C-alpha cells in the first residue's frame, strides 16, 4: 500500500521538481558565475565548477570589488537607498492620512474622489512623463532626489491609499465613536487610534512600496537619467548591459549587488510582503 502510494505520487514530485529547477537553476548559475575568474567564465560553463569543487581556488570576491569600485555600483547602491527609503516613508505617510480621510471623514465628493483614486491604480505612467518633465526642468527638480521622491510618492499613492483604506475601513466604528464623545479631534483619533491599530497594514505597504521603488527602472530613467551621482542601481546595471554586454564577470556581480537588499527583505520579511500582495490583489 505504502509503496503504491509512493509510486503513484512520483509524477507529482517530478512536475514540481521540474518547476523548482527552472526557477532555481538560472539564479544559481548567475550566483556561481559572479564568484568566478573572468577567463574561466568566458571559456567554460558555470556547471564545470562542480567536479573541481573541493580543490578550491575557483572562487574569489574580485568581481564584486571590481563593480563596486571601478564601475561605480557602490555609489549607485547608496543612490538607490537615498531614493527608496525617503520616497517610501513619504508615500506611506501621505497615504495613511488620505486613507483615514477617505475611510472615516465625511466630506462632499468623497466617494467620487476615492473612485478616481481606485481608477488611477492602473494608469500607465507613460501618460504622465511628457507634461511633468518640462515643469520639473523649470523648477530644477529634474535629476534630483527630491524630484524623484515626489514622483514615486504620487505614483504609488493610488495603490497605497487604497490598501491602507481597506484596512482602516475595517476598524470597528465604536472605537472612534467613544473617542469622539471624549472630544478628541480627528487628528487625535487618527494618530492615537487609527495609526497604531494599522501598524501591520502600514508595514506591509511600506515593504511592498520599498521593493517596488528599489526595483524601479522606468521612473528613474525618466526623472534622474544616467548621471552617476544620482543614478540608482537599476539604471547603472542596465547601462552596464548596454556597454559591457559580454563581460559576464561584471554583469553577474552587478546583478547580485542590485538584488542583495531585496533578497534580504524577502527572506526576513516575507510574511509582510505576501500580506501586501494579497491585500492588493484579492480585494482589488
Amino acid at each position, binding site marked *: 500500500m505504502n509503496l503504491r502510494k509512493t509510486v503513484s505520487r512520483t509524477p507529482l514530485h517530478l512536475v514540481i521538481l521540474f518547476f523548482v529547477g527552472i526557477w532555481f537553476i538560472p*539564479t544559481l548559475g548567475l550566483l556561481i558565475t559572479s564568484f568566478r575568474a573572468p577567463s574561466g567564465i568566458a*571559456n567554460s*560553463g558555470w556547471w564545470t565548477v562542480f567536479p573541481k569543487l573541493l580543490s578550491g581556488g575557483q572562487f574569489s570576491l574580485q568581481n564584486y570589488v571590481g563593480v563596486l569600485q571601478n564601475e561605480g555600483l557602490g555609489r549607485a547602491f547608496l543612490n538607490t537607498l537615498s531614493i527608496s527609503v525617503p520616497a517610501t516613508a513619504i508615500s506611506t505617510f501621505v497615504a495613511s492620512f488620505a486613507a483615514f480621510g477617505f475611510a472615516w471623514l465625511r466630506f462632499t465628493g468623497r466617494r467620487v474622489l476615492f473612485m478616481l483614486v481606485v*481608477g*488611477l491604480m492602473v494608469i500607465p505612467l507613460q501618460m*504622465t512623463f*511628457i507634461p511633468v518633465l518640462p515643469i520639473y526642468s523649470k523648477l530644477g527638480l529634474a535629476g534630483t532626489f527630491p524630484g524623484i521622491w515626489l514622483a514615486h510618492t504620487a505614483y504609488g499613492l493610488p495603490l497605497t491609499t487604497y490598501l491602507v483604506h481597506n484596512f482602516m475601513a475595517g476598524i470597528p466604528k465604536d472605537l472612534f465613536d467613544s473617542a469622539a464623545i471624549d472630544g478628541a479631534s480627528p487628528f487625535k483619533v487618527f494618530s492615537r487610534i487609527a495609526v497604531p491599530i494599522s501598524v501591520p497594514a502600514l508595514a506591509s505597504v511600506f515593504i511592498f512600496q520599498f521593493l517596488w521603488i528599489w526595483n524601479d527602472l*522606468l521612473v528613474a530613467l525618466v526623472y534622474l537619467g544616467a548621471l552617476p551621482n544620482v543614478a540608482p542601481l537599476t539604471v547603472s546595471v542596465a547601462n552596464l548591459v548596454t556597454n559591457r554586454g559580454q563581460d559576464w564577470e561584471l554583469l553577474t556581480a552587478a546583478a547580485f549587488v542590485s538584488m542583495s537588499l531585496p533578497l534580504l527583505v524577502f527572506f526576513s520579511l516575507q510574511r509582510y510582503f505576501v500580506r501586501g500582495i*494579497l491585500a492588493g490583489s484579492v480585494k482589488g
Partner: protein
Amino acid sequence: MFVGPALLLIGFFLVYPTVMTVARSFFGRGATLFGPRVEFVGLTNWKYVFTNQVMLTSLRNNALWAILFTSCTVGFGLALAVLLDRVRYEKIAKSVIFIPAAISMVGASIIWKFVYAYKPATLAQIGILNAIVVALGGEPVGWLIQRPWINNLCLIVVGIWVWTGFCMVIFSAAYKNIPKQLLEAARIDGANEWRVFRNVILPLLGPTAAVVATTMLVQVLKIFDIIYVMTNGNYSTEVIANRMYKEMFNYFNYGRASAIAVVLLILIVPFMILNIRRFVAQEGARS
C-alpha cells in the same frame, strides 16, 4: 485636510498630465509642451501609430505577450498552488518560485540573458540552454536574435518566470480557504483528483483567477524593463512601452510619444472601469 496632500500630488502627477498627454498627441514634435513652435498636426501621429511598421510590430508583440504571458502565469500559478499543497516541502518550493517577485526585472533580465548566452559552435558554450542543445547534438542557437518567434518567446519566458510566483501566492491563499470537507466529500462520492479539481476547486477559484488574470494583463500591457535591458526592441521584439520611451528620449518626438502613451491608456481603460465597478460592488456589500 487629511486627503489634501494626496489629492494635490495625484492631481499634479497623474490627472493633469493624463489630460495634457491626450491633447499633446495631436501636436507636432516640439521641444516644449505647447510652445510657439509646436504646431497642431491633427491625426498625423495617430496615422503613424497604426501604420508604421515598427509600431505594428509592437502592437503584435504586445498581443503575443498578453496571450502567452497571461495564460502561463495564471495557469502555472494555479497549478503550482494546488500541487504544492500536496507535498511536505511546500514551503521551500514556494519560496524558490516566489523569489523573482522580489528582485528587479533588470536583475531577472541579466539572469536570463546568461541562460540564453550564445557562443559559436567551435567554442565551449557558457549559456546553459545552448549547452543543453549542444549536448543533445544540436547547433547553438542565438536565442535573442532569432526573429520573430524564438526571441519573443524567450523574452516572454522571462516575464513568466518573474510573475508566476506572484500568481501562485494569491491562488495558494484562496485555495487554502476552501473548506477541506468540501474536497473530501467529493472524493468520498467517488470523484477522482482531476474531477475534484475540475468540478470543485476550479469553480471556487474562478473569482480569484479573474482578479489575477486582470492584474497580469495590466502588467503585461505596460511591459518595458525586460525588453529595454535584453534586446532594446531590436530584432522585431519591440513593444509599445519601449517604443514610447524611444520616441521620447532618443528621437524627442513628444507628439508621437504622447500618441503611443494614449494607446496604452486606451488598452487599460477597461481595467480601470472594472476596478471601479468591483470597488462599488464591494462598498455595496459592506453597507
